[in-house]
């Protein structure tokens, strides 16, 4: 019997029949199908023990208090902290992505030195600090050769930075422009004590004069809790919210009343309201009430209608609302959280005084400052008087002596300052960026020092801008730093440098500074360390003035040129100048906000008809001095007549593939001008031309 074809076929058939009586084919089919469900490149769940660790966001301007969920020590996400006044269990769209930002592709992982070919060279901390120490030796004792810019608005690190600047013989310590600075300057002009705060919890009429209080202004998560409390679900609200501004911002959407007003016209509206309130009998014991009354008298509703575009009926409605309210509050602010007019802030605060909403439970409150702990630190008043926009303009025009060294601490002036300061910054011989992400300023620096994220470090948060009560919180590291070479706090860097320069600030470590601060605040340190906030509802100071003289003088500011007014809008979801749009938050960008690399600017149908542009059309927005940005047109009735609305925080030229080259930077169109009477730069009034591209 040979092996013929037929026996092979029989053998195979036998094999096939036999295999049917074994589990193998069924198991293999099943196993292969399971195999296709578990590709090695799809991440697997990593189990562990849940813990929720309290901290306060240092990245988000809202200073939202958070709980970081960790799973066996691994950070997973942030959520609101129900026990904390800066959260109430809720979270801002930026703070909500803070854990993911630990692994942002833009994070700086180690010290970097700019090489001669323009590339980056990794260097050790020792070398980096030695280099900086050597450079600092050349500028010590000079009033002009060192400048420091801080992007932190709430931390005691500013005391360390300003103390260092002062002991190096300079006064050139600047904060990035913010509402805090505008309010502080206005409050100073009014002779107020402490810091001006606005309490909305318990108010029955909240008027936001430009300030985007439910989105980007101040400690917005806290403000929004008060908003929520006043509006029980499906019931008639217990408080009326009114928003005055050129576009229907998120605050305007949440408010009961949106009154359209031209960009930067807050002072005119406030004075118009003051006019009507005084006519109705409002008065104040302020020393300059007579002068203020005379000033307000110039702002008849018809005048306000012409200056601000607010109809007479709307102005009367707002005045009536304020007048009838039991606990009203008026919150003035820039539409996009910076560059606001000091006069407008003063006029807005004056309205609170006229309404008797001063140092009560609700309304304007003089919130005490916490005592400084770094002896050599500059006084808050002096820091707030330093005008960064004006300084940069001075440098650009060669009116001011150029510094030899510029240190930026978690600040991105190259992106965020009005106009274009890149050329001015480039001329500074040695630039040091202490930064978390590779932003525009870090990209231009000669030396980059990595900074840990808030959840990786010791830090603190003291009373955010405009907050109605004094709050102090201490942060302890929630997790070990994910980049071991990026684990030195900027405060420690500066303290070390100060010691080497024989400019000792009296502390060995930033942790010691924080311990001293906690003590100075009068808080229970154990409570603070456990994540509890110290809250003081006390108020300070006597009767402020109405700053009538300064406001009157400010009216001499030159009016913007250009056919259309530019309204910028700042949304926390789009990140800040120092974070850019976080990867997750890119999904918040709506269909008609960005198309590939071009962003949309928004104008209503009437304005578009006047400009001769159509939906989706490519245009160039032009401001004076050849400033221009490209954009697409979106016809939206959420913008008042004659106004073009554009979002902030797009158009980054640094960062990563998530943020880079998406849209245009609206700050390029701004021109800062020093306000007469108040002496601080403002850039809320920008005229633009719309040109078809």
């Amino acid at each position, binding site marked *: *019997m040979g092996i013929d074809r037929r026996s092979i076929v029989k*053998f195979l058939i*036998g094999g096939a*029949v036999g295999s049917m009586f074994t589990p193998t084919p069924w198991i293999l089919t099943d196993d292969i199908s399971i195999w296709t469900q578990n590709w090695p490149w799809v991440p697997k769940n990593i189990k562990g023990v849940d813990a929720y660790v309290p901290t306060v966001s240092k990245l988000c301007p809202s200073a939202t208090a958070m709980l970081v969920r960790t799973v066996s020590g691994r950070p997973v996400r942030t959520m609101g902290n129900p026990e904390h006044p800066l959260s109430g269990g809720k979270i801002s769209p930026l703070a909500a992505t803070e854990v993911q930002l630990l692994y942002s592709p833009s994070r700086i992982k180690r010290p970097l030195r700019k090489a001669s070919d323009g590339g980056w060279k990794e260097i050790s901390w020792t070398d980096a600090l030695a280099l900086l120490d050597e450079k600092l030796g050349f500028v010590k004792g000079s009033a002009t050769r060192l400048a420091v810019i801080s992007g932190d608005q709430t931390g005691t690190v500013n005391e360390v930075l300003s103390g260092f600047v002062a002991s190096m013989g300079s006064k050139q310590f600047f904060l990035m422009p913010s509402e805090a600075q505008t309010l502080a300057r206005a409050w100073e002009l009014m002779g107020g004590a402490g810091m001006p705060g606005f309490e909305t919890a318990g108010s029955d009429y909240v008027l936001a004069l430009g300030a985007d209080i439910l989105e980007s202004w101040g400690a917005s998560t806290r403000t929004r809790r008060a908003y929520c409390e006043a509006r029980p679900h499906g019931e008639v609200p217990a408080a009326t919210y009114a928003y005055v501004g050129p576009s229907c911002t998120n605050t305007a959407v949440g408010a009961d009343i949106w009154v359209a007003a031209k960009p930067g016209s807050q002072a005119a509206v406030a004075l118009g309201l003051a006019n009507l309130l005084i006519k109705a009998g409002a008065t104040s014991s302020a020393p300059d009430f007579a002068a203020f009354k005379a000033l307000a008298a110039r702002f008849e509703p018809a005048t306000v209608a012409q200056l601000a575009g607010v109809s007479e009926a709307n102005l009367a409605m707002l005045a009536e609302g304020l007048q009838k309210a039991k606990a009203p509050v008026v919150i003035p602010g820039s539409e996009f959280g910076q560059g606001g007019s000091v006069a407008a802030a003063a006029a807005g605060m004056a309205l609170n005084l006229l309404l008797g909403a001063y140092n009560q439970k609700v309304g304007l409150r003089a919130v005490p400052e916490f005592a400084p702990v770094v002896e050599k630190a500059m006084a808050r008043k002096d820091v707030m008087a330093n005008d960064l926009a004006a300084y940069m303009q001075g440098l650009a025009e060669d009116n001011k002596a150029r510094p030899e060294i510029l240190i930026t601490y978690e600040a991105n002036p190259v992106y965020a300052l009005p106009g274009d300061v890149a050329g001015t910054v480039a001329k500074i011989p040695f630039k040091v960026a202490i930064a978390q992400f590779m932003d525009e300023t870090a990209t231009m620096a000669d030396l980059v020092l990595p900074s840990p994220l808030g959840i990786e470090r010791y830090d603190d948060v003291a009373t955010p801008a405009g907050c109605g009560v004094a709050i102090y919180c201490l942060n302890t590291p929630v997790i070990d730093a994910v980049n071991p070479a990026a684990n030195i706090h900027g405060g420690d860097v500066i303290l070390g440098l100060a010691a080497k320069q024989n400019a000792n600030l009296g502390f060995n470590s930033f942790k010691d500074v924080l311990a001293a601060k906690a003590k100075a605040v009068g808080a229970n340190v154990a409570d603070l360390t456990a994540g509890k906030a110290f809250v003081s509802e006390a108020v300070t100071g006597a009767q402020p003035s109405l700053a009538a003289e300064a406001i009157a003088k400010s009216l001499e500011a030159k009016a913007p040129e250009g056919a259309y007014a530019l309204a910028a809008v700042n949304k926390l979801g789009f990140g800040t100048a120092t974070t850019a749009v976080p990867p997750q938050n890119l999904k918040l960008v709506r269909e008609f906000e960005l198309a590939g690399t071009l962003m949309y600017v928004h104008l209503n149908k009437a304005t578009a008809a006047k400009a001769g542009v159509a939906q989706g059309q490519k245009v160039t927005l032009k401001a004076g001095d050849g400033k221009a940005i490209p954009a697409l047109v979106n016809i939206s009735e959420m913008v008042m007549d004659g106004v073009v609305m554009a979002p902030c925080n797009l158009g980054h030229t640094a960062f990563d593939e998530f943020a880079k080259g998406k849209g245009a930077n609206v700050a390029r169109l701004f021109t800062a001008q020093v306000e007469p009477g108040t002496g601080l730069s403002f850039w809320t009034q920008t005229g633009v031309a719309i040109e078809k591209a």
Partner: protein
Amino acid sequence: MEEKRAHNADTGGQCSVLGGFLPFGLGLVLSLLVGWWLSPKLLFSEQSQPVAFNHKIHKEEAGMTCSDCHYFREDGSYSGIPTTKECADCHEFPVGSSAKEREYVNKYVKKGQEPDWKVYQMQPDNVFFSHAAHSLENCGKCHTDWTEKELCSTSGCHPDIGDSEAPPKYSENRITGYSASTMKMWACEYCHAMPDHRAYNANNNACFTCHK
């Protein structure tokens, strides 16, 4: 075709019974052998646990109970295998004289590392298993004769190793990467889809009862 068939019938006629069946039978037997004996051996790789953990000593000599290590946390989750930190409560230094314990202390406790335990009943990511739901308080309502030990092991979920002196071998499916004793859905449904159980909880065989 006609011719060929005739030729075959002619020559093969003599041994048609045996010769016709032999290749078929050979194939049949061989494939049965491969299917039942060889392929399970090829499909699974046998592995040892990283630590020769002795349950018996812990129970009998240290007087520990199961829930000393395998307990529920306050948030409702189940601790499963204790962490090195928990073991170090007793084993920061060797407490006995065994070489294996010394090795464990040196290799894991001192370095603060977790052993790469092979979990006999590891379920994939898309399964949510609630230990809290499968408790004697629940199952014991009707199965009054069950002990905790029976609940955990006899129903097929966990190997019964509570009294073992060394952990059994772990065998891993080379294709799927799952443990050989990972329960399949039909095994879960043995209870979940049982009509008797519907009275207790009308929806206990819904997809989301177990999947995530």
